[in-house]
């Protein structure tokens, strides 16, 4: 996994709440057996609408998505994270993420930055008034920043310490766990004999 420190990129205002995983990528797009190529399915239904935010040239190269609360609800499909990454997104900012989506983001290296709902409102207003405007997301400092002068928006975001550390270091979870192999083996030795096995 690539290390994540600070990212500056075009902000995309997605004025929607409850953006579920079927909206992020419908099931018919989940048939690939690779981790790439899912950008075609990203927001597939909405992208038919010429007015949809990603169809506007100023936002098309966006890398920081700003969405309403309950982003990523529903399915456990990590393809939702891959679709966002394959398209070019590095960060999603929302007041509330569904648990599985947030977990998947942390594992795959997409930063899910949770901010106060008021911050999302201000970012939406800024990005709509300044199409193509950039947002800087600083993981070491846990801040989001956009605009300048009197209009500058600076606020903090929430992310759990462990995920932040892993993103900063670009660490592979499995390698860390395999370092605890002896503890896993010790635990396994204590499991009751009647626990079911599949073979």
């Amino acid at each position: 996994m690539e290390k994540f420190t600070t990212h500056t990129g075009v902000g995309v205002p997605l004025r929607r709440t409850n953006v579920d995983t079927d909206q992020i990528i419908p099931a018919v797009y989940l048939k690939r057996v690779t981790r790439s190529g899912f950008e075609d399915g990203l927001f597939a239904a909405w992208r038919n609408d010429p007015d949809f935010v990603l169809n506007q040239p100023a936002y098309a190269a966006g890398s920081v998505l700003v969405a309403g609360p309950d982003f990523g609800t529903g399915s456990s499909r990590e393809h939702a994270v891959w679709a966002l990454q394959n398209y070019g997104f590095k960060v999603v900012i929302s007041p509330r993420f569904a648990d599985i989506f947030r977990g998947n983001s942390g594992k795959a290296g997409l930063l899910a930055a949770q901010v106060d709902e008021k911050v999302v409102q201000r970012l939406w207003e800024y990005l709509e008034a300044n199409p193509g405007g950039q947002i800087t997301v600083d993981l070491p400092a846990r801040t989001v920043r956009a605009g300048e002068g009197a209009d500058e928006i600076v606020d903090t975001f929430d992310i759990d310490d462990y995920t932040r550390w892993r993103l900063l270091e670009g660490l592979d979870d499995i390698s860390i766990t395999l370092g605890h192999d002896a503890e896993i083996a010790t635990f396994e030795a204590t499991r009751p004999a009647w626990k079911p096995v599949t073979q």
Partner: protein
Amino acid sequence: MGKTLAEKVWDAHVVRSAEGEPDLLYIDLHLIHEVTSPQAFDGLRLAGRRVRRPDLTLATEDHNVPTVDWDKPIADPVSRTQVETLRKNAAEFGVRLHPLGDIEQGIVHVVGPQLGLTQPGMTIVCGDSHTSTHGAFGAIAFGIGTSEVEHVLATQTLTQAKPKTMAVTVNGSLPAGVTAKDLVLTLIAHTGTGGGQGYIVEYRGQAIEELSMEGRMTVCNMSIEWGAKAGLIAPDQTTFDYIEGKPEAPKGADWDAAVESWRTLVTDADAVFDKEIVLDATTMTPFVTWGTNPGQGVPLSAAVPSPEDYADEGDQLTTRKALEYMGLEAGTPMRDIHVDTVFVGSCTNGRIEDLRLAASVLKGRKVAENTRLLVVPGSVRVRLQAEAEGLDTVFTEAGGEWRGAGCSMCLGMNPDQLAPQERSASTSNRNFEGRQGKGGRTHLVSVPVAAATAVRGTLSSPADLEPVAAGSAKES
């Protein structure tokens, strides 16, 4: 201070716990299907890793498979590749697989319990959010992403922060004709789609205790629909009776040891939940959704809500968008809504008890003109059992389609899809935009409501149906 059921099961699986780190949790059973596993096996191959415990892993094909012509090669080449990839991976890594055509094939959350692999006190994961279904047995069961699937394959563990605990107590008995599905839809409308976020929920109280295992699975299945990490129910005699004799259930002295252990899986009297919700089952009625998330539901007897019913500006906008997508006018009685397709099936309501209930309503009746009924059993075993009981004949004589096992129209990944603007009454779990096919409009309903809706062609409950004329039903 005592422990909640969830805390007992969690604590019994902690391999390693350290300050400032999530717990390392041991996984008793890892279920796998074709959609969320290929990239995980690829990861293992790239790193030169093996599956640590193939004997705690089980794979089946469900999401992508056709429900007709299941004995022929899959027509869609992309779907076929995905299914064949699972077969290759299972063979290469030594994982037991129940492929299309196998007698144990079916929806992963139907297969686990019917094999007896789902047992109280276990930790169960799968790359599927409806893994919460298995919580009905007093297990901690939750959905994971593909990176986590790879992690479990390689280590048989997961790193997980310990969630908070919540009790949902449902007092009293459900009235006749009101099901577990109505109960959980009522709950989700009460909490909203984010209400359970960060919690493992224990469902308890008289109404929950009175549910069959199938009903309990329906409730736990939809835990994810209100954002909960997992949902579980304390095991009791109903649970033990269901498991006993299943192919992979403990036998002989092992059975006695297992039951003795399972009886300890209750929340202690002095345990404290982080949050509690109390509901009254006696006031519950058939419940249906009108919108595009599972929290947007009302009693069947109510009308489509109006954006003006909500004080919050965001809720007004969400409601307006949902009504527009669903093609509904505020104020329309739910019972007046015409339905094109009725889908009975899915990991929520695709078990034998569900099919019996649907058949009991449809027996001697006909599906309405301009309405299509699709009945999809949750597994091959469920299909064969239904056929042995003659339920398939009830469905086909009513004018419905009887299909092979799989996820089917619940998520429209195989050819079973809604056309744009086609409206369904569905016993599945999600009414998201496009969930059952691009532009499709979904109303989530219980099994009796689905069956009655098929007969009248508008959202209905069995109470709305004319009695079956004497002599029109075949004696059985």
